[in-house]
């Protein structure tokens, strides 16, 4: 096991919590963007999204061919292509170019890749002045910060902080007014553009068939940088190459809508190597275009079955916009240089797994995957990253403890009274905090006197079909009454209900990167359920996370026909009720008589089409259901139970924001179908919080 210097994530989070308290600049900016996106995202079809995914898959599959194709095209058009193995080599190439062309001032347009290779520092150490021309980048450059968001580098700063930085830089008072700040900076940029000897830009895409560099911005800084300067250096990752212009068009339809809620960004340019430059001292010359494409781990990642998906990223930042922990702490904590959910695999690819400690901040809610237009499984990439980190440098001790959660639970469940006494005593909680790492302030559910296996009886005549009930640890050991309620409803509807042998879903193992162990659990559960599926049973999960594992993670982990077969025959409980027809269901349940319910949608109940089976179910019983897409409740299984800033404190802060929004709605109570979410909501809300099973009653007739 190698040693790694370690970041104190808990301290870093606590510091941000104290600075951002009740302001949450990332969240505010991201919510504003999400509001704008809501108006245009429906214009993108699922077919188009599928096509974009396919384009990226093929481009990465043929990465090396595309590089060669581009090289040939650029040579024929008088431009240069250089491939840099790593950041140092790329930076040296740029310095050599500056020396060759006597460049003293470089104007730079926003480029994440140049951040990746820390180009500015390198150029400045060689005496070359670098001016970032994107407003946000310029602000963080002058402030001495690093970008905290891939689209809004200065999102972490208030207007007052920005004005302070500029006042110091210009040596005269700059008011904290964005309009005035923009006018000041505009004046300064003009002078820089005219003096600069070189423009450096990134690239949203590079087209192999014609060499076009495609740049998408809202400010237009890229265009002015390039327009006025004689040398244009493009620094981009090799994965930015797309085979054709047609491919670019497809992605353009998706990119701006997802990034900022625009149909197209203000400026989209296709720069071709044969353009001539802005005249200097009366002479007109061809613009020199030099493409420096960086490998820095990408080519190896493209060959890595588990990781290559990260290279499909189109840099829209959708994952950052929805990530609950990121929205609280921002990219300086939730990131290395690449930040947010996409930053986790990208840090592993470009800066090595040793710099991915911040992956522990991901709560595995999966909202990033849902938001990603290319459908990149960012949670799973996070899991892979944690696994590789764990195998190389060791897993965090709390995660190692939580890996054995099922053994702890089964052991404690054997002696429920004693366990509950221990769990509710101060000393007990302190010991658990000390030896396992669960925060003593977190309310833990109590063990039931009897677990579900002990009280469950096969029921139902089976005239409508057969159901195998799949639960998870919480329902099985702490809330068996919900399992029984589910079973009773199904039997009243004419289903034969059985409780097959099962282990808990294994989500914590997936979540913390214990992939091999998770695979064993997946295999056990799938094999147990497959026997029943073969006999015509449908699998109905009481817990959303259990259903999510069955339908998504188990087939992914096992990649077998039987796991796919089980997945195809699996339903969430309320999804199943909807499937068999809510009109039948309402006949056996009591009306909810205009009960006003604020419904919390658990992350693992979210469907791609946006439908909410549980909400529909409650409405079918006559309830008035209010809901709002507030995202994850913040507990996320055991993640929010961990001691420290990066566990309990962060989880509570996420939950507080969620609950505040719910309390502003019209519901008289909050309801959800996840026992995990319920723990968090009930611990934070003044409103009564109920599991849906506790609200519904079966009619006696």
């Amino acid at each position, binding site marked *: 096991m190698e040693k790694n210097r370690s970041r104190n994530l808990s301290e870093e989070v606590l510091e941000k919590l104290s600075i951002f308290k009740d302001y949450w600049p990332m969240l*505010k*900016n991201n919510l*504003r*963007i999400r509001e704008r996106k809501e108006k245009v995202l429906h214009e993108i079809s699922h077919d188009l999204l599928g096509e974009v995914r396919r384009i990226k898959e093929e481009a990465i599959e043929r990465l090396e061919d595309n590089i060669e194709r581009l090289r040939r095209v650029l040579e024929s*058009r008088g431009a240069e292509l250089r491939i840099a193995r790593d950041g140092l080599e790329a930076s040296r190439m740029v310095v050599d170019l500056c020396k060759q062309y006597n460049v003293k001032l470089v104007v730079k347009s926003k480029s994440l890749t140049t951040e990746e290779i820390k180009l500015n520092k390198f150029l400045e150490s060689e005496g070359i002045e670098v001016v970032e021309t*994107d*407003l*946000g980048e310029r*602000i963080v450059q002058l402030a001495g910060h690093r970008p905290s968001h891939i689209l*809004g580098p*200065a*999102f972490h*700063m*208030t*207007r007052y902080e*920005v004005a302070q930085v500029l006042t110091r830089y210009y040596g005269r008072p700059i008011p904290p007014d*964005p*309009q005035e700040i*923009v*006018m000041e*900076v*505009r004046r300064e*940029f*003009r002078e820089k*553009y*005219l003096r600069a000897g070189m423009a450096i830009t990134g690239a949203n895409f590079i*087209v192999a068939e*014609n060499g*076009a560099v495609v740049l998408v911005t*809202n*400010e*237009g*800084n890229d*265009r*002015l940088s*390039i*327009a*006025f*300067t004689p040398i244009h250096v493009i620094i981009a990752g090799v994965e930015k190459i797309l085979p054709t*212009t*047609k491919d670019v*068009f497809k992605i353009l*339809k998706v990119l701006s809508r997802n990034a900022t809620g*625009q*149909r*197209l960004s*203000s*400026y*989209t*340019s*296709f*720069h*071709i190597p*044969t*353009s*001539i*430059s*802005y*005249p200097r001292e009366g002479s*007109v010359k061809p613009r020199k275009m030099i493409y420096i494409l960086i490998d820095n781990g990408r080519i190896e990642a493209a060959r890595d079955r588990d990781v290559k998906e990260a290279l499909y990223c189109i840099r829209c930042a959708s994952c950052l916009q929805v990530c609950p922990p990121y929205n609280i702490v921002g990219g300086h904590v939730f990131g290395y240089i690449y930040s947010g959910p996409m930053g986790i695999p990208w840090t592993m690819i470009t800066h090595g797994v040793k710099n991915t400690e911040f992956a522990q901040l991901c709560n595995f809610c999966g909202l990033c995957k849902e938001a990603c237009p290319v459908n990149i499984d960012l949670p799973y990439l996070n899991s892979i990253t944690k696994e590789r980190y764990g195998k190389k440098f060791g897993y965090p001790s709390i995660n190692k403890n939580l890996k054995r959660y099922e053994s702890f639970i089964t052991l404690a469940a054997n002696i429920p009274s004693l366990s509950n006494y221990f769990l509710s005593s101060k000393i007990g909680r302190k010991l658990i905090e000390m030896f396992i790492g669960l925060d003593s302030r977190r309310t833990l559910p109590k063990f039931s006197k009897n677990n579900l296996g002990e009280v469950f009886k096969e029921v139902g005549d089976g005239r409508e079909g057969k159901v195998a009930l799949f639960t998870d640890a919480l329902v099985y050991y702490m809330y068996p009454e919900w399992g029984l309620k589910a079973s009773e409803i199904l039997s009243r509807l004419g289903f034969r209900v059985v409780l097959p042998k099962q282990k808990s879903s294994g989500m914590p193992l997936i979540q913390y990167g214990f992939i091999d162990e998770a695979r064993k659990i997946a295999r056990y559960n799938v094999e147990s359920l497959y026997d029943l599926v073969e006999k015509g049973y449908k699998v109905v999960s009481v817990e959303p996370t259990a259903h999510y594992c069955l339908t998504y993670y188990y087939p992914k982990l096992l990649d077998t026909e039987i796991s796919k077969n089980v997945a195809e025959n699996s339903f969430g409980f309320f999804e199943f009720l909807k499937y068999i027809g809510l009109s039948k269901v309402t006949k056996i349940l009591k009306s909810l008589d205009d009960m006003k319910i604020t419904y919390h949608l658990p992350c693992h109940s979210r469907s791609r089409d946006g439908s909410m089976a549980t909400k529909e179910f409650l409405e079918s019983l006559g309830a008035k259901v209010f809901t709002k897409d507030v995202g994850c409740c913040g507990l996320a299984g055991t993640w929010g139970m961990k001691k420290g800033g990066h566990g309990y404190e962060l989880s509570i802060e996420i939950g507080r924001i969620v609950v505040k929004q719910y309390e502003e709605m019209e519901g008289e109570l909050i309801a959800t179908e996840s026992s995990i979410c319920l723990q968090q909501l009930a611990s934070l809300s003044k409103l009564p919080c109920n599991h849906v099973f506790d609200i519904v009653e079966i009619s006696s007739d």
Partner: protein
Amino acid sequence: MATDNVRLFIERLESIGAVAYVCKDVDELIKYLYDLTREVKTPILVVGSKTEYREEIISKLKERQLEIQSIEQGLKCDIYTSELSIGFPEKGIASTGTVIYRASSGIEEAALYAPEKHISIISRSRLHYELDDVEEFVENTLEEGESIFFITGPSSTADIEGEIVRGVHGPRIIYTFILDNY
């Protein structure tokens, strides 16, 4: 369809902070242009495609004693201090409110983006419904070795507290005129 495109184009331009007008002919357009340009203190830069209406418009503006500088004739003024440029885009996309220029020199690019105000003049017949409709044009132009520029509204930034501010680098104000009789 053409009427629908014009209506949609205007709607989309307005939604992104640009100002759009339909003019029935060049004479009506000149009246608007004169109002917008007579206060301009720097030469007015003209850039963009040699459309069938471009020369008529330029000569009529010149008749009104406006100082017009066509970019193709070389540069005789400080481009970065120019207040206004007038452009003749190749195409427009109604569903996004985009105008498309092609350019093969830094001067043309600078003239499009450096002034604080930019006026685009486009005929109804050059308007297309969506991005896909201009794909072939873009492919061919790139193949011919010219760069392509889409402009969809004013230059904007939301870098400070997410507040949208216009004109950080490129034009702060964009007018788009649609010529109805071409």
